[in-house]
């Protein structure tokens, strides 16, 4: 078992190749781009020139320096991480009871309930966000209801649209299934005899949950958290449509750099930081998840 046979090595080739082509190489290209100059009409300038027969490299650290010149970008990073954390937390709070309920429901109902969880995926992502725009709009049912309640209490009307609340609500809505599914997969495998045993040994409902169910489900919680945290961190469509200027996230700036400003090198810098953050989170999550699976 010490030495891996060539067959075993061969088996790891496809995933390695996949990671290389779709992750490592693009990341390296981005990393490289972050050290280049902007082209005359945006995009990237050539990275070397030959003048009088001598080769010169046109690379720079300027783009990286720009990142630290103002605190705008770092603030935006932390804000995005904050949004992602809050979204993940809310997804756990909302998704855990749901996953638990499905896992404890009768076997014949479970498939149907799971189907309902993933049902939203059957309609287009943008359509669902537009639906939230209608709900949040000043004349929308939700805003009207809240404001008439506030009116009764003598409070000034508020607007939900174009706020952090709107963005996070929608982020939670979109990513909830990614929390529920791994949690369900974990909870469904729990041996019910363990809860009987815990109860038999004197644990009430509350302690049975915190001492048995919760610790045994931690690996599911981490899996779900990563599946929610990472895409939320890179989300731009939702803050674009619902966030206004307040609810903007780092991915909006990245998109802006690439599409509107056509400043690819600086866009690459921001992307690299985002990627690094995501990788760090995954590594951390995997480590804790491993301990949780103990």
């Amino acid at each position, binding site marked *: 078992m010490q030495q891996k046979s060539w067959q075993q090595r061969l088996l790891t080739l496809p995933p390695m190749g996949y990671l290389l082509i779709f992750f490592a190489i693009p990341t390296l290209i981005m990393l490289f781009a972050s050290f280049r100059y902007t082209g005359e009409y945006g995009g990237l300038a050539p990275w070397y020139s030959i003048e009088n027969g001598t080769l010169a490299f046109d690379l720079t650290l300027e783009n990286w320096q720009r990142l630290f010149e103002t605190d705008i970008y770092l603030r935006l990073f932390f804000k995005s991480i904050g949004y992602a954390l809050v979204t993940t937390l809310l997804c756990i709070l909302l998704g855990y009871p749901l996953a638990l309920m499905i896992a404890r429901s009768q076997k014949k109902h479970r498939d149907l309930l799971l189907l309902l969880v993933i049902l939203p995926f059957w309609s287009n992502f943008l359509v669902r966000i537009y639906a939230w725009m209608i709900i949040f709009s000043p004349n929308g049912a939700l805003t009207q209801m809240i404001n008439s309640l506030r009116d009764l209490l003598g409070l000034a009307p508020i607007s939900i649209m174009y706020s952090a609340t709107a963005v996070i609500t929608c982020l939670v809505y979109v990513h909830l299934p990614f929390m529920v599914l791994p949690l369900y997969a974990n909870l469904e495998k729990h041996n019910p005899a363990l809860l009987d*045993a815990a109860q*038999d*040994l004197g644990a009430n409902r509350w302690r049975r949950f915190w001492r048995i169910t919760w610790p*045994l489900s931690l690996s599911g919680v981490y899996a779900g958290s990563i599946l929610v945290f990472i895409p939320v961190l890179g989300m731009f469509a939702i803050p674009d449509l619902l966030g206004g200027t307040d609810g903007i996230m780092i991915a909006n700036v990245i998109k802006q750099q690439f599409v509107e400003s056509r400043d690819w090198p600086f866009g690459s810098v921001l992307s690299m930081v985002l990627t690094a953050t995501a990788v760090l989170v995954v590594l951390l999550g995997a480590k804790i998840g491993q301990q949780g699976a*103990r």
Partner: protein
Amino acid sequence: MLEIKEVSRYFDNFTALDKVSLNIAAGEFFTLLGPSGCGKTTLLRLIAGFDQPDNGDILLDGKSIIATPPERRPLHTIFQNYALFPHMTVTENIAFPLRMVGCTQAEINRRVAEALEDVSLPDKGNHYPDALSGGQKQRIAIARALVNRPRLLLLDEPLSALDAKLREQMQLELIKLQKEIGITFVYVTHDQGEALALSHRVAVMNRGTIAQVDEPSRLYGFPNSRFVADFIGQCNLLSGKVTQLQDNRAQVELEGLGPVQTAIPADSTIAVGRNCTLTLRPEKIHISSRVSHDEVEAHFKGIVHDMLYLGDVTVYKVELANGMLLEALLANSSPGRARFFEIGDQVEVAWHYDAGHLVMD
């Protein structure tokens, strides 16, 4: 100490338990024995509190515990697959019930160490359950259930997942442990050998009812029904009708065989004309090639139909005149002499008048 009073439990239209009444004394090793699906687990779950009876009452020390939730009943259960908590070490597992009642850490440490000592696994404290063998898991489950000295320990087929050798060893350990700590055990099994070996008393269950409650030896020697006789050990069942009662003997007309004399059991509802079954243990039947009339009072001719060599004994199946197969057991006590008869041999089977035990149908 534990009193089960006319307890019934229905699932939809199915009667899982039908007016079950039992009295279990303090310090007793009491076994519920019965075929699969007879309601043993159902009854145990009612005692533990995981399920509620539809009728009847369960009393512990004279007080009803029906309304008490499982976590507050002073009794613990050993589950069939141990149900050790996989995310806790052995020490944490055993400490669990102590933590639930709020013992101090010092006390927990002391009692966990004691409990590990009791089950002879003092150095396994830091292991996780999945690093233990089946027998070790079993012992840890027992240690965990006994650590805070419950009044009663319920065990639902705790040894069924172990191999034969280990099972026997664990049986001996269970007997010893129960004797030492003196806690009442209610033990569930469908293995009659296990029930006879372990218990002070056994309740034989059949389709949600109690067929007989007795000591193992009485259960074996004096079954009160055809079902019990058949379920406990090997037994020949001869159907017949009571034709005559005289002194302490009854005459029974066996179907297809004719009249035999037999002893009248002490607590019997015997009456002339009743249908009955003569239960005959294979080891009580004599089998010989000669016709003899001394001391034995019932004898029939037959042909050896089949034989099963088991090492210490040989089981002969003898076909009687009416086509019935009678099982007889011969000990292979003399060396080099494993077979007394061959298949096809003409033999005579005989039994003493009080060898059989008569039960009314």
